[in-house]
């Protein structure tokens, strides 16, 4: 069983994409500064180690609170404990922003009406009614017409009066 574990957890599985890392790195530097290839690799390794460190501490924080799931709050606490308290504000801001963004987007396919304007929603509703009516008319005929006749006769009464 153990050799299989080692094969499964190869370096490719637990590293971060170099292209993304490289972009983050480049943005911190003046445009003419180059970054050696092995330097990028080292930064990736450092980042993985950072995740390991914060993961372990987050796990501890989680356990201490008798919780079973590592939540963002545990990670923030871990950052503070490990001395990365300066990161917390920015990290939390990004987290909040992402939460707001995902609240706005239509998730789960629910017809929340946020994607459409009210007129579009009303039009959509009319369209669905029309479709349903068409289905009904195809199946059972003459159901609707007596209603319409009544309405029209009522209208005639009103006008007379």
């Amino acid at each position, binding site marked *: 069983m153990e050799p299989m574990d080692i094969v499964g957890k190869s370096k490719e599985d637990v590293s971060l994409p170099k292209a*993304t890392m490289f972009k983050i790195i480049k943005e911190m530097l003046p445009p003419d500064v180059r970054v050696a290839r092995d330097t990028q690799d080292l930064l990736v390794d450092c980042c993985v180690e950072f995740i390991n460190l914060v993961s372990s501490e987050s796990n501890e924080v989680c356990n201490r609170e008798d919780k079973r799931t*590592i939540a*963002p709050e545990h990670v923030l606490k871990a950052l503070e404990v490990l001395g990365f308290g300066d990161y917390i504000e920015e990290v939390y801001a990004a987290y909040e922003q992402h939460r707001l963004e995902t609240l706005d987007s239509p998730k789960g396919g629910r017809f929340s009406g946020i994607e459409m304007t009210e007129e579009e929603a009303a039009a959509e509703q009319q369209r669905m009614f029309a479709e349903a009516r068409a289905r009904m008319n195809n199946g059972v005929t003459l159901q609707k017409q007596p209603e319409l006749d009544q309405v029209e006769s009522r209208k005639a009464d009103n006008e007379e009066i």
Partner: protein
Amino acid sequence: MRQAGIYSGILSHRTGPHSLPLSRIKKIMRHSGSDSKAMMIAGEAPLVFSKACEIFIQELTARAYEITVLGRRRTLQKDDIATAITVTDLFDFLLQVVPESADAGDGAAPAAGGRPIDDACELLL
């Protein structure tokens, strides 16, 4: 579309194009957990990690670059990172990641004009 500027990363609040993939972060988190316990991870937790990693890399890069500048070079090298790690207490956990710290074996012969690591100590601490 390159944004120059050393601190553009720190001051902006982008999470979009450069955020690290959450699935990979999740894999690393699971991998780092102790063998006996299976860590349950809330959906939003990798996102927090992604941002924290970004800031971490930015800080490490910035500190390493200061070493590069001290050495009057225009290429960020592995040793620059190693030096930055050595002089920053916060990065002690990374000492095991760098193969050889820049300070190793330099005790006897100080280079002419001062060692970058000494200048770094003055600059960063």
